[in-house]
């Protein structure tokens, strides 16, 4: 039996957090949430999640900056980060990869696509 994985959900939208929770509670995951980039970095350091699902546009600190900060932390630097973005344009995606994210999904979130990517990064 595999251990439960912990996923940090980061989004300032309650709607999207609720959607993500509804999708992910079908899997064996413990879910932790944060509503901006600053909180995401702090929660990542204390909760040590196995994967982070990060929105891009957020108050206080955006997803790209939070991603860069997390990559700079030794204890959580290698945690897979999947960006959730409304913009699938090349430039936006490139910025995401430059900031250190591993992958991205676009809104509206497709549950099947999201689960497939999570499983892939969680080695399931």
């Amino acid at each position, binding site marked *: 039996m595999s251990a439960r994985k912990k996923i940090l959900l980061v989004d300032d939208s*309650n*709607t*999207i957090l609720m*959607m993500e929770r509804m999708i992910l509670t079908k899997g064996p995951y413990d879910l932790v949430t944060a509503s901006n980039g600053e909180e995401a970095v702090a929660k990542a350091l204390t909760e040590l999640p196995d994967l982070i699902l990060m929105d891009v546009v957020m108050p206080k600190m955006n997803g790209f900056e939070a991603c860069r900060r997390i990559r700079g932390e030794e204890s959580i630097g290698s945690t897979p980060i999947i960006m959730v973005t409304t913009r*699938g344009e090349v430039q936006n995606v490139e910025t995401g990869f430059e900031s250190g994210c591993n992958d991205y999904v676009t809104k*509206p979130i497709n549950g*099947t696509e999201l689960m497939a990517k999570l499983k892939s990064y969680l080695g399931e």
Partner: protein
Amino acid sequence: MSNESGLPSYVDRVREDTQKYIRHLMAENEQLRVAGAQLESETARLRQELAAVRQELVQHREAEHELAQTMERIRTEGEQYLARYAEVEMHNANLANLYVTSYQLHGTLKREAILQSLQEVIVNLIGSEDFAICETEDGALTVAASVGVEPATVTWATPHVRTAAESRILYIGPADREPGDPLVCLPLQVDGQLVGMVIIFNLLAHKAQLEPLDHELFDLLASHASTALYCCALQQRLQEAVPAS
């Protein structure tokens, strides 16, 4: 017969050798006859075995054909189950979207929170960052919230807005519409009374077109968003009418 010296004559020796040779030939002939009989018997046995093997081969081919048919049936069934699973998953996701939308809209009586939820639903579930949420009161159309749209540009003169408002029927524009024309005009109504309008001008770049779920979301928004806004307005009027104790 002996010659005068008492030794067998040449003829006797030839006769004796011939007889020996004949006996040898007869023995060899007998051996060959036996060997021939054995070969015939072996041939008959092998023929029988060959026939049995051929029969077995036919049976194996039939079994193989049946197995192939079974595998094909199982594969088809597997594909049908997968398609059904995907369909159920999609249905599940759609229900989740509708549930989230309804939950978010009715989770508060604060106008700003309802408008915020409505915006989040349009951005995150429908997939647009180019829309306006309008309210109608005393024949006026007011933009209550907008994303990617200059509020002043949204008026009754905006194409299809007045028609949709008067007919109370959802308007969905064609993909090849004029620039600036709305893609969606969704009248928000309570008991047939128009309370507002959601006007979507464009979808996100990576979303090519509206999907079946979007139509269900429009149906839900048309009643639930309007009810939520209406309840919020009632609450506000009530608070204004009843002085705080």
